[in-house]
């Protein structure tokens, strides 16, 4: 049973704008190719910026000589680490006071991964920029480096950073006593799962332009998820924070890959050094080579359950390959830790989550942020335990699903409705009748997987977002919010929320987003936080503005405030259609009376201290989005190929502000997860990237995917505006486990490693002869 929406003053039927699949204001320009993305920006006298990248994964730089490059015609500047006021900013990547680290912007004496920036140039043309790169003389002393995460984590291993342990973060979660749990278990399943490195592979590679404005402000217009990077840029350039401005235009995708800085420090430094505008656009080969990836995880799981299927204990050891720099790894690992057991009640839990330095390509944020990899393992464990106990996969899940109010392994309560029983049923039903195998060597199989994904930042970051709303004299509305729009409709959602409250039609709303100088700061677009945080900020701002002007409108209409209706660009009186005044008239009256028609509001998320570091007990994430996916596959047992026949993805989004945008997020997220399940892999050989082309980095294309059925449930219980939950990241997680389960169902062999390539399935089938592996 889906509960009635929580009381927020409006029942769903009364929503005029929220819940409608309105065309987004940004879409027409995108379809016409008129949107000015970061790389489209042109300025007079603009230079071309390029990066010289390390060809070795690990090497000492014996000599770096840029004199010849600087002397070339057309070359404006060549910069190395020594030329920057500061080649990095010291940060605490844990946010909990556990680590201090400075990640270099340019390598200084040592390179630690293949593709690491060594020097940057700005030149009059791309040809002269390339010539300058070729003329830079670098003498490397290649070193063997550390490339195996498990070996790097062992005592006595070669170190990536002198004087630092390779294991640089170790989160712990302790609840109950796992030994007690396992002793009482009727079935115990122990497996090790491995997920691979994958790339964000956004349509729009990293790009940006920087210039020094007439007032001396360094302005960076870049494809970025975080305009607040202006502070780090100022530190690097040795400038006051208010001398750097970051503008994020519409992005062609971010997925976490533009959460750390990309081109920003390079274009900023080059513009600062030359005084001229500098544009830098990375090629797909650069992006695939050197941008931080999704972490490869090794997950050891031991799960025990009672005869009736009740989970008793879960022991998890997780190791992530971070590459040579911490970036966001500590936070990724923390998210993985918190959801390690999945959306199930487990009384006894022990989790160790560690990240280790290697000389592989760095890993950092990517859609799903550590939580999604865990889905692959915990859902496989559920299937294996079910198999051991002779239960259907759905039954063991139903027995253990979290319910609102239940304790999570962190000791905190699940704070909102958990719709998993309904989600599971809807996803399974969506597959319809079972397909018949297409040939004598084909086997059809089905799988399901459920997940929970946090939305919003961990509460100890004390997250906050601001929004400014102002009515114009003609009754139109301006919204200003420092929200980078990644293409998910972040800006349009704010318009839809404000339209609902203030009655301005969405066509009469102009949204200005993503400018650190002109829009109130809202925090980056990551962690599935923007609808939750900025949506709430816009909602609060709209309600406060409405409260401000309502008495004026009431006076004009000679009506009670409680009877006012804001709709269709008018304020009217409920039940009296002929009694209404235009918003423009209300604004004019406000001006006459000195009542403000604009407002800045902030939404402050929950604030709490970090959890206990020895046990992981405490407050962590604001809330979660739950989902269940179901898949049907056909496996060719002769070749090991897996073909996806049907796919359904079902999530409780609390309230869909724009159902079309929600469906888009679900379909895109599922496709991303499917790509990771079946084909994508950044393959490294001793740190050397073998997959820097889309010809060998195998993303699925349209013909490889079936129609992904997006099923949206609205429980009305979420912590976002109108009871919404975030949906950006949640759909990426379940495909890994869903497809693995379907392959196991078809073949009897459970994939423990991703991607599920034809060769891996073929080998597993060949190796099965005689052995009995649980499904």
């Amino acid at each position: 049973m889906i509960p009635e929406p929580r009381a927020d003053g409006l029942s769903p039927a009364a929503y005029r704008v929220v819940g409608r699949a309105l065309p987004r204001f940004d879409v027409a320009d995108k379809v016409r190719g008129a949107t000015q993305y970061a790389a489209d920006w042109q300025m007079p006298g603009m230079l071309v910026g390029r990066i010289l990248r390390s060809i070795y994964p690990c090497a000492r730089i014996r000599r770096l000589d840029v004199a010849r490059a600087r002397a070339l015609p057309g070359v404006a500047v060549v910069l190395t680490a020594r030329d920057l006021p500061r080649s990095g900013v010291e940060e605490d990547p844990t946010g909990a006071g556990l680590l201090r680290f400075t990640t270099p912007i340019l390598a200084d004496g040592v390179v630690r991964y293949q593709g690491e920036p060594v020097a940057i140039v700005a030149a009059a043309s791309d040809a002269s920029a390339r010539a300058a790169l070729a003329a830079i003389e670098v003498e490397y002393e290649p070193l063997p480096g550390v490339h195996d995460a498990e070996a790097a984590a062992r005592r006595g291993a070669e170190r990536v950073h002198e004087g630092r342990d390779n294991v640089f973060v170790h989160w712990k979660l302790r609840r109950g006593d796992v030994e007690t749990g396992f002793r009482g278990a009727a079935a115990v399943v122990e497996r090790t799962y491995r997920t691979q490195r994958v790339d964000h592979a956004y349509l729009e590679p990293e790009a940006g332009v920087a210039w020094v404005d007439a007032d001396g402000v360094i302005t960076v217009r870049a494809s970025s998820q975080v305009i607040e990077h202006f502070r780090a840029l100022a530190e690097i350039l040795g400038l006051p924070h208010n001398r750097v401005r970051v503008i994020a235009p519409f992005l062609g995708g971010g997925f976490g890959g533009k959460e750390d800085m990309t081109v920003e420090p390079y274009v900023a430094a080059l513009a600062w050094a030359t005084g001229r505008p500098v544009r830098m656009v990375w090629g797909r080969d650069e992006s695939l080579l050197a941008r931080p990836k999704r972490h490869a995880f090794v997950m050891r799981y031991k799960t025990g359950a009672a005869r009736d299927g009740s989970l008793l204990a879960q022991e998890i050891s997780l190791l992530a390959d971070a590459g040579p720099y911490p970036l966001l790894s500590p936070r990724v690992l923390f998210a993985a830790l918190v959801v390690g057991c999945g959306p199930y009640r487990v009384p006894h839990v022990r989790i160790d989550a560690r990240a280790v330095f290697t000389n592989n390509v760095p890993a950092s944020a990517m859609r799903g942020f550590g939580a999604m990899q865990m889905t692959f393992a915990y859902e496989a464990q559920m299937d294996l335990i079910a198999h051991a106990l002779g239960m259907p996969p759905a039954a063991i899940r139903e027995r253990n699903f979290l319910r609102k109010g239940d304790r999570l392994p962190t000791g905190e309560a699940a704070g909102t409705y958990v719709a998993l029983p309904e989600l599971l049923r809807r996803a399974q039903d969506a597959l319809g009748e079972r397909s018949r195998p297409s040939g004598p060597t084909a086997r059809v199989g089905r799988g399901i997987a459920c997940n929970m994904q946090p939305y919003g930042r961990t509460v100890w970051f004390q997250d906050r977002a601001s929004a400014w709303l102002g009515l114009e004299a003609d009754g139109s509305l301006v919204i200003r919010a420092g929200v980078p729009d990644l293409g998910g409709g972040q800006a349009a959602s704010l318009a839809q929320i404000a339209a609902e409250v203030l009655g301005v039609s969405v066509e009469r709303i102009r949204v200005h987003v993503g400018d650190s100088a002109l829009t109130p700061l809202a925090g980056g677009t990551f962690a599935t936080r923007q609808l939750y945080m900025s949506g709430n900020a816009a909602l609060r701002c709209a309600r406060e503005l409405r409260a401000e002007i309502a008495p004026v409108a009431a006076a004009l209409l000679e009506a009670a405030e409680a009877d006012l209706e804001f709709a269709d660009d008018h304020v009217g009186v409920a039940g009296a259609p002929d009694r209404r005044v235009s918003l423009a008239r209300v604004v004019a009256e406000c001006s006459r009376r000195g009542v403000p028609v604009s407002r800045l509001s902030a939404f402050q998320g929950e604030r709490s201290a970090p959890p206990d570091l020895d046990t992981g007990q405490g407050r962590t994430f604001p809330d979660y989005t739950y989902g269940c996916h179901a898949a049907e596959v056909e496996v060719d047992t002769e070749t090991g190929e897996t073909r996806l026949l049907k796919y359904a993805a079902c999530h409780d989004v609390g309230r869909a502000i724009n159902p079309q945008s929600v469906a888009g997020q679900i379909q895109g997220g599922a496709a991303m997860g499917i790509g990771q399940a079946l084909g994508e892999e950044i393959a490294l050989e001793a740190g050397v990237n073998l997959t820097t082309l889309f010809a060998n980095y195998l993303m699925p294309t349209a013909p490889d995917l079936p129609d992904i059925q997006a099923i949206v449930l609205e429980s009305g219980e979420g912590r976002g505006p109108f009871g919404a939950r975030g949906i950006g990241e949640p759909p990426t997680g379940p495909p890994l486990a869903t497809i693995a389960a379907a392959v196991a169902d078809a073949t009897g062999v459970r994939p423990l490693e991703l991607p599920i390539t034809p060769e891996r399935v073929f080998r597993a089938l060949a190796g099965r002869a005689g052995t009995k592996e649980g499904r």
Partner: protein
Amino acid sequence: MYLPPFRYVAPRTLDEAIALLREHGDDAKVLAGGQSLLPLMMLGLARPGVLVDVNGIPGLDRIEADGDAVRVGALVRHRAVETDPRLRAACPVLADAAPLIGNIRVRHRGTVGGSLAHADPAAEVPLVATALGATVEVRGAGGARDIPVHEFFRGYLETALGPAEVVTALRLPARGPRMGYGLAELVRRSGDFATVSACAVLGLDGGGRCTHAAVAIGGVGPSALRMRGAERLLIGQLPGDRTLDDAADAVRAEVAPESDVHASADYRRAMARVMARRALGAAVARAGGESRAAGPGAVRS
């Protein structure tokens, strides 16, 4: 990734094109559909100083089917091979191979001659040409000559074409009365080059015995390779399941593939057997023999 600078010339006749190729030697490359050459240039793997665009030369884009033999002009696009009814009637195996090439945008531009001259070991046109024992017609300064396909492909992206020679056509032999073909390929992703591909062509006599057998495998060596050992096992035999299994096993033993990021050598070898067996089964069925029935088109796994 930008194209490096180059000179572009568009001759109106073959002689002009050949003269340009002679003049510029190794620095010149023929541009036909551009579906292989331009990506190589984008990646910096080819840096020709001169591109000789042959698209404007008349007469190179004809499909001529007289009787059973077929002559496919070098500039015929893969999409035309896929859709031309005369070609499909005369040489259905080539018509069935065409839709396996890239995607529809690639097929509208890519040409038969370009695919031959590029000589990718996993490409479909060289595979079918090899299995059919086709002939490549070329023209150079010394005039025209015919090169049998087994002499045309010399190695990975290497052919017998002289520096100033141009492929003008692919000539396919006439089809016998009880001949059948089969195509099978394994791809990691739709439209990609095959990991392993197979093309089998079998001819049967009135008693159902194999009088002609050709098995070509792509993706396992420097070019598409004929499987002579497997073919010997088929000649003179009734192609029942046992015989086809034996022939496929022989294919597995005959290939010597290498490992790459997409597949190990062992897996490629195993898949060469599977693809050969599937292609053979389809060929027998089409020739009117006994093995598993073949539907229309290729066996695409």
